[in-house]
């Protein structure tokens, strides 16, 4: 009993001593909105370690995108901070819902590296703390048994999957999140960028996808879909993760941030041991990967008192510069925080950066394009219309929405 007490005391003492070193004890009220995956939970927990006397609340939700704009539009805003990514910061910027934080960075952001700052027009609008991308996962045992080298391009992924299918080992050897809507559109974005495509005519909001690159993109998506579970249009990242863990898939494109849950102790040990990570694939002879780079970072709500913003910043900056956190949770994410030593689970993102992957386009009208893609290319994948017709539909749907929103 005494031993336990001593250990407890030691732990308590240890953490306070540590927190004292980095944290200037905020007060007031802190309320954070964030997506729901392990690395973000760790990040917010770490921030909570520096809550001082503040009232600390957090909402982790995979529906964060749907909540964010209405919740931050209210005045005072429901949340004092929102953990956003390249795409989700755009609607906040468009509606002028987040505040620049240059002063706060100067005052409290000692441990934050310059490379973590997201600056737009010279103002710091977000502080990034982790990077993410989609890359390839493969089953080493299956590929070895059939003598297939690790694929580097999507053409090789197709060839490898066809070989696995022909061997009779697996009926649907490939998986990617092709759920109609956001996920499917994201796969199109990746593949289109891999083909060297630009979504808009230079300097305008005019769409630019109905061309040879768009057609090649769609054809590749269709080929991959034909090698996937026939229900691919209803499968999101979580569903394909389950497929992988049941051993029915040998090649998969999935988020780097999910590698932790694939490689943990849960599930079949044989499959976990044979699960290997590699960089994202290229496509169509291009040299940049068919993937987009993402950052996750925190933003501060504009419609909230200055003192709450300050408290929130202190707590979140404590986490965004926390060497202990990145050391303890090194396998949960690719942290952008100083002191991070990349482990085996970070291979995907690091390879993507090395290969020169592009960040997800942070344009004000990109969300409308993404939305149009998610619903209009479905019929092509189902074999109901031609690639040209599908791309024409996407452009037409986008143009109507962009006109309503005043971009065209």
């Amino acid at each position, binding site marked *: 009993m005494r031993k336990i007490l001593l250990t407890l005391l030691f732990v308590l003492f240890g953490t306070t001593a540590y927190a004292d070193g980095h944290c200037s004890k905020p007060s007031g009220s802190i309320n954070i909105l964030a997506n729901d995956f392990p690395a973000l939970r760790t990040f917010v927990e770490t921030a909570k370690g520096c809550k001082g006397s503040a009232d600390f609340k957090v909402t982790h939700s995979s529906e964060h995108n749907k909540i964010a704009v209405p919740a931050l539009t209210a005045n005072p805003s429901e949340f004092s901070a929102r953990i956003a990514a390249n795409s989700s910061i755009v609607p906040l910027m468009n509606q002028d819902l987040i505040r620049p934080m240059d002063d706060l960075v100067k005052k409290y952001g000692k441990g934050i590296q310059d490379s973590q700052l997201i600056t737009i*027009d010279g103002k710091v609008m977000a502080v990034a703390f982790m990077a993410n991308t989609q890359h390839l996962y493969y089953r080493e045992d299956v590929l070895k048994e059939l003598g297939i080298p690790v694929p580097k391009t999507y053409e090789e992924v197709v060839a490898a999957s066809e070989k696995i299918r022909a061997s009779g080992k697996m009926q649907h050897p490939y998986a990617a999140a092709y759920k109609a*809507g956001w996920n499917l559109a994201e796969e199109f974005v990746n593949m289109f960028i891999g083909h060297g495509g630009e979504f808009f005519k230079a300097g305008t909001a005019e769409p630019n996808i109905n061309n040879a690159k768009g057609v090649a993109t769609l054809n590749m998506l269709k080929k991959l879909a034909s090698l996937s579970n026939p229900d691919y249009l209803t499968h999101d990242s979580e569903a394909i993760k389950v497929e992988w863990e049941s051993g029915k898939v040998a090649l998969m494109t999935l988020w780097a941030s999910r590698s932790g849950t694939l490689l943990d102790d849960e599930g079949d040990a044989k499959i976990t041991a044979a699960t290997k990570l590699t960089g994202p694939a290229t496509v169509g002879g291009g040299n940049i990967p068919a993937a987009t780079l993402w950052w996750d970072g925190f933003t501060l709500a504009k419609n909230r008192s200055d003192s709450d913003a300050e408290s929130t910043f202190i707590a979140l900056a404590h986490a965004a510069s926390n060497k202990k956190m990145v050391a303890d949770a090194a396998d949960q994410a690719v942290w952008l925080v100083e002191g991070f030593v990349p482990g085996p689970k970070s291979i995907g993102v690091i390879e993507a950066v090395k290969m020169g992957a592009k960040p997800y386009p942070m344009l004000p009208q990109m969300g409308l394009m993404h939305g149009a893609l998610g619903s209009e290319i479905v019929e092509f994948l*189902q074999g109901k219309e031609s690639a040209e017709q599908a791309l024409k539909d996407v452009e037409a749907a986008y143009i109507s929405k962009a006109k309503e929103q005043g971009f065209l």
Partner: protein
Amino acid sequence: MPNKTFFWFFLPTGLAMILFIGLPIISTGIQSFYAQHDQVVKEVKKCDPFGCTVSIVVDQEATSILRDEKPLGKFNGFGTYIDRNHLAIEQISDFWKETDTFGEFINQVTNLPFYKALLFTLTYCLFVTPNVLLLGFIIALSLNAISRKIRGPLIFGTILPMIVTPLVGSLVLFWMIDAEGIIGANLQLMMEDPYLSLKSSRTLTWITIIIYGIWHHSPFAFVVFYAALQTVPQEPVEAAIIDGASRYQRIRHIVLPHIYPVVTFVALISLMDNFRVFEPIIGFSAEGSAQSLSWLIYDNLVNEEVILFGSAAATSMMTIIGIAILLAPVLIRTWKEFRTAR
């Protein structure tokens, strides 16, 4: 009830209806005529962990001036109603000129989002409503004929689909018909086709959702019909039996005319409910193959990173008009009967 008593009796409900239903509809109607201001954008330097680029952002200062002047946005009249994502007047007249055959024209039109959704919504209504009425009536008749001892538990079992939350019900079925699920996998085995998928084929998805709809809505019809059956007077039925009328003849000529007003009521409610079909599409993740008008509104409000208020409002208004048109024949008939009864 004297009119005055009725007025005071109805007043609280009426006020609540105006406040919570009437005013929001008016507000939605007004919003549907407005679009966002023209976006003022500017080029800026943008830096993130992956490097610096020149990018475009919305110029907040210029935009806020515009917004303060006209907070509702830019007046757009029926612009949103007739654009490509709604009634698509222009596109349809183009298709009419460009296409050679009528089939091709219909194909092109049903490829437009609004008509695609309308087609599914109407198909769903047309298949689900009559089947719900029929199935509900048959169940009510059979249960009414069963010994009283076991009637209680049977009634409870029958209304279960209505008790189960729609989303939960559809999710359970969703996993069962997955290619790896119990129904999906067995269907593949039976058909000897490893590529068979209830979820990837449009026709099969529609059939699944329609069957689910019938399963989910029948208990409502059953409950109402069962209650109505209890009021059927026994004397004419007994007289008919003595006259040698068959079971079918008794139902056709005595029971049905008696419960006819109830049938109209159930038909009305079902039609309205089915026209707003929404939950099964989310539950079955079927947005790829089946979209309804309600789903379009949800999509505009929730799935987009930029909320399309104008679009959502326009679709809402058209859904209300759609329901009114669908209900018109039944309403007119009821009104006429009411007049002749007087």
